[in-house]
């Protein structure tokens, strides 16, 4: 039987930050530029602020029900049937996110680095790594996240610093992009980019109390927002809005343009470490959360037998999008635009209903 284990604030911050930020290395920055033009780098701050408000309410909900996971709270507030349906919605949201993230990773790898390898082969390799991590449990994933976090941060900062030669400040102008209204609306809509923060409600049992969960949630949101904002800012400075929106993997492309004489060039293999490790951690964390929710819904004590079947299901679902357009413009864009409704609305609504009905701890008080 896998034990979720216990880990501290640092591990949680590393786990949540990597899970949230990994997406910035794929097509998301281009989609942001296509939507809001030059304003993408501060649009994401609006998204982070909305996600922060949702997290404050989520933490409030968790504080009303001490030592309870989000799924348990749903059952207490709505009863068993509706509670399970809401857990199932959360399960579906995370499943779609994993499917989209894994396939996007594979597609980008195929475009830039492994064009001959079939997607199924790459997906199997990815899920081998993810399954091993899931097999070893949440604590291992969290501790591995912490172990890699400093290295990943160092590589990320190196890429940003080495790209400085590409930065042109005029590319931030016109400063309002396609207009302030578009930026604010898109910012609110794309708060789903930080939607993975919801998993704090699922893994709360592995943390040392609500105080730790609160600290970890807020700090990881702040760090993730900083990483995503700096990545978008660097991207906006390096590519003008009219060509920036065309690029499949902007941050990778930025790394390929780094050139200091004949000595420092072609440093993108360094970027591959950042890319691959962050994706494996991100997918593994979400995959494990998926297993927790599934085990909860179907009241299974042992999570181990679920890993391989669920992994196979995810691989097959990831192979469903017919092409990269269907994936990025359709699936990924849909998750980023409407994911907030599935990630943030249920807990917020549950908090409101819990406050109105005063149904705390399974009985009306």
């Amino acid at each position, binding site marked *: 039987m896998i034990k979720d284990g216990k880990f501290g604030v640092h591990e949680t911050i590393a786990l949540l930050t990597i899970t949230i930020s990994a997406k910035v290395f794929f097509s998301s920055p281009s989609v942001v530029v296509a939507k809001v033009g*030059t304003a993408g780098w501060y649009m994401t701050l609006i998204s982070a602020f909305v996600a922060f408000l949702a997290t404050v309410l989520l933490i409030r909900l968790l504080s009303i029900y001490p030592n309870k996971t989000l799924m348990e709270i749903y059952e207490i507030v709505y009863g068993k049937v509706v509670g399970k349906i809401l857990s199932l919605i959360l399960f579906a949201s995370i499943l779609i996110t994993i499917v989209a993230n894994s396939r996007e990773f594979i597609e980008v790898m195929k475009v*830039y680095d492994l064009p001959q*390898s079939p997607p199924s082969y790459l997906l199997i*390799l990815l899920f081998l790594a993810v399954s091993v991590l899931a097999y070893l449990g949440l604590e291992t994933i969290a501790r591995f996240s912490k172990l890699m976090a400093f290295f990943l941060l160092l590589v990320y900062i190196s890429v940003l610093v080495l790209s400085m030669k590409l930065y*042109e400040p005029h590319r931030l102008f*016109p400063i*309002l992009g396609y207009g302030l209204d578009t930026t604010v609306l898109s910012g609110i809509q794309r708060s789903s980019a930080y939607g993975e923060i919801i998993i704090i409600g699922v893994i709360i049992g592995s943390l040392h109390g609500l105080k730790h969960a609160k600290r970890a949630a807020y700090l990881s949101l702040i760090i993730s927002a900083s990483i995503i904002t700096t990545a978008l800012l660097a991207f906006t400075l390096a590519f003008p809005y009219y060509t920036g929106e065309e690029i499949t993997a902007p941050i990778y492309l930025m790394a390929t343009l780094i050139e200091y004489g004949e000595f420092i060039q072609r440093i993108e293999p360094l970027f591959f470490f950042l890319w691959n490790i962050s994706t494996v951690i991100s997918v593994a964390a979400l995959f494990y959360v998926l297993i927790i929710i599934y085990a909860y819904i179907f009241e299974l004590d042992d999570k181990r037998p679920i890993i391989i079947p669920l992994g196979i299901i995810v691989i097959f679902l990831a192979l469903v999008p017919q092409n990269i357009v269907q994936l990025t413009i359709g699936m990924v864009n849909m998750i980023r635009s409407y994911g907030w409704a599935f990630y943030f609305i249920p807990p917020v609504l549950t908090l409101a209903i819990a406050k109105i009905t005063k149904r705390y701890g399974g009985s009306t008080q």
Partner: protein
Amino acid sequence: MKKKILLIITIIMLMVTLTSCYDAREATSVSFVQMIGIDQGITDKWRITVKIASMQNGDDSSNKGSESSQQTQTKTITIDAPSFNGGIDLFNTNIPQKLDFTHASLLVISEDLAQSGLMGEYITPLVRFREIRRTLNVIVVRGNAQEFVEKTEECNQGSPSRAVVSLIRQGENTGFYPKISLNDFYNGIKSTYRQAVLPLGSVHKKNFDEEGESYNEGVKNTGQYFAGDTQRKGGNTIELLGSALFVKDNMVGKLNGHETRMMMLIRGEFKKGIFTIQDPEASKWIIPIDTRVSRKPNLKIYFDNDRPIISLEVKTEGDILAIQSGINYESEEMIGIIENEMTRYLEKGITSVIHKCQSLNTDPFNFGRTAVKHFLTINEWEKYNWNEKFMEAKVEVKVDFKIRRTGGLLRNSDNNVRDE
């Protein structure tokens, strides 16, 4: 026992997955393309020329480690094809190794193709192609690209691609041509802030006059030629000098080496170069000055009823390299005369190149990068259409020039002064 079986399975899986993957390629099964030339085709739409490097002894390992096995040979192959990628496949009907573009360092485009208005159509597939890096250098050549790529073989510096890339880097020391990457150029042809510009190259024409009367006319500007036209004997067959101007993806004109320097000064990309001015006190003689930009140009743009007013201030400095007349310009009272003359010279050159570009309706100076700061939204900016409005712009140019050093001589003694 269970653990041992698991370990064995893991080791077998690692052996299978880590040995290689679908994309693994041996160095001997690949031909690395060094240069790409693109012309308009005769029997098909594209005429693609590639210069490929292959190890001299292929995969023969008999003399492994010897010097001869390390030498690279190059071959130039040209093919007509309906598309760039289709052309690559056609090349592989002739070349046993797979063509690999990841190490290509130069893209050569013919002037005809550049002027056809189809550059976007030709460039986009290259930008999309994963093997071509956007750091690839791009040049436009007079004549055809095929000949230019072929003639790089005759460069006297080992590998042709290394020689050409070094030549492109030399532009930084002279300012006679810009160094433009595929990324810069692609951004340029789509830009709302500016228009694209590319360095101009050519196969050198044999036009050196060995005999005739001695030159007896005024002082010519250094670099007042286009590539291929310099009066030269010997040296490499190819040369770079001047630049090609674009409106979107269509080449609309050229700047000679001198005009390109002025453009580079305005862009703030001029590092250093030698300007030769006429001696203000003795017009028969010249004064060469090693010139550099002392500060980034100060550019202010404001609008008068939609008409842009551009105020440009270029700060330069330099060292005197020679005073043929022997006049003591090094003295505190006289040094200002050279500074004023140089200021006039640069102002005239800058104004002239701006007017030339305005008449061609192209802004290669990146003025739009400053103008955009006056606009709040992309819609407003695109509606204003800087690239069209630049033509009507009023440009005020101010140059500041200071002499910093006078070379190995602190002053000319009076008895060295030559007659007019």
